């Protein structure tokens, strides 16, 4: 069961007499991070912290708004008034399998807007949550320590040439070029994959049926034309001419339809591949290398 840890702490500036900006900080963690508060206090020892778990959830629906930056302006302003702070800092840490996602948001209580956001998605980063948390908090406070940077750099690739991606946009594009929708499925966009596959399959089927009808009509026209030219019987001439004219009209209609459908199929196929490339999987956070659990450790 996912456990959400909510804590609120006030940085020293909140109660300090100086004119420095003051911050209200919310920590939302889906799993308990041992010593998180303690390490924050240690790393920002000029700060005064207060912890409160009374607020269960806040700004969780941020990404559902067209403009997240201005989605909760009134609430931010109210909180600013209530706690007498200049900024609100929200730190969310969510774990997915062997990854953790740190989503940091900094709000200005005067405008109520989101002024800075940092989202990090990392894998096999032992105890990296604390290091990334303090780096994020430190960045908002203008404090950076060499140790934090070195910890992060230790997981970065020293040789960019050795970077290999699990999934790439090109991989998605190639797959979609082979089979429409495959690239989208490869990018975990199942609905999009189904739509593309369905559309392309329908167009292809319609094209094949049109072509088969064209072929049948064209052969019928040629056959009836031969019969028409091969008889001197007035009634048969009229009959074969009528059949040939019907087949001729059909072969024109189905030919145009087949060409239109082939164009749509081809265009759709290429578009599907381009779509797969555009919306293909891309690393939106830092590039990482696997953490060696046996030899590395991390401290905030």
């Amino acid at each position: 069961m996912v456990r959400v840890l909510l804590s609120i702490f006030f940085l020293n500036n909140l109660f300090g007499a100086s004119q420095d900006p003051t911050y209200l900080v919310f920590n939302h963690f889906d799993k308990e991070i041992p010593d998180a508060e303690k390490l924050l206090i240690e790393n920002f020892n000029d700060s005064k912290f207060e912890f409160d778990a009374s607020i269960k959830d806040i700004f969780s629906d941020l990404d559902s708004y067209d403009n997240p930056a201005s989605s909760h302006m009134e609430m931010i302003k109210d909180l600013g008034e209530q706690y007498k702070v200049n900024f609100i800092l929200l730190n969310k840490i969510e774990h997915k399998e062997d990854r953790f996602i740190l989503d940091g948001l900094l709000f200005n209580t005067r405008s109520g807007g989101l002024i800075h956001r940092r989202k990090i998605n990392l894998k096999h980063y032992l105890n990296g949550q604390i290091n990334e948390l303090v780096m994020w908090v430190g960045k908002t406070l203008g404090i950076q320590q060499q140790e934090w940077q070195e910890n992060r750099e230790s997981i970065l690739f020293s040789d960019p040439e050795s970077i290999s991606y699990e999934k790439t946009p090109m991989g998605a594009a190639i797959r979609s070029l082979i089979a429409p929708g495959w690239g989208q499925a490869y990018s975990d966009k199942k609905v999009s994959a189904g739509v593309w596959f369905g559309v392309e399959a329908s167009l292809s089927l319609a094209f094949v049926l049109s072509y088969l009808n064209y072929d049948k009509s064209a052969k019928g026209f040629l056959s009836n034309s031969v019969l028409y030219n091969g008889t001197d019987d007035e009634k048969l001439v009229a009959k074969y001419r009528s059949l040939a004219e019907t087949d001729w009209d059909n072969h024109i209609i189905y030919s145009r339809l087949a060409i239109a459908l082939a164009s749509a199929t081809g265009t759709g196929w290429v578009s599907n591949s381009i779509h797969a490339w555009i919306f293909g999987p891309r690393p939106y956070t830092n590039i990482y290398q696997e953490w060696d659990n046996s030899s590395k450790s991390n401290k905030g």
Partner: protein
Amino acid sequence: MKFIQNYKFLFLLLVIVFSCKLYKKDFDNPVDYNANDDLGIRAPALVFYPKTQTINQNEVIKIESVIVFHPDSLESFAGLHFSVQFPNSLLELDTIKPGLFITDTSNSTPLFTYNFDGSNQIDIYAYFLSETKLNIEGTGHIADIIFNSISTGTDSIYYDLDDCQMIKINDDEIQIMGKRGAEIIIQ
């Protein structure tokens, strides 16, 4: 490699698309009233079937002489005289037979005869003289003209409308409005 496979698919798609050949609608059977009408040949018309024949030298060639009426015509005829001109440098007359149109009536076979001038003109005559079958109407096959090919070349066989005549049972003349020749290619 996968790209090449897909280019093959797109190439296949293009091949299929371009294989959608559009045929020209060309109805030109001389027995077809509408085809003749499209060519400005009005009915009743004297035509030959088929319109073109290609044979080898010394082979026999058969040409059908056909009268074409409007499909809705009820006009009947009791006698006719066709005058046919043919290229005697390429063909020599073998024989002439009455066509199915005037012989398949179980009631009566008309008087059928022809005259060849020894050069290049044939006159064909057909008359219904019976009391049970006096006339017929509609489009039909009047005569088969059979030639022997004697040299190579291309020429045509045609009607001389000035000498052609068609009459009703009461001797009223039916005006012949059009004619079509036939092309003969001997190789």
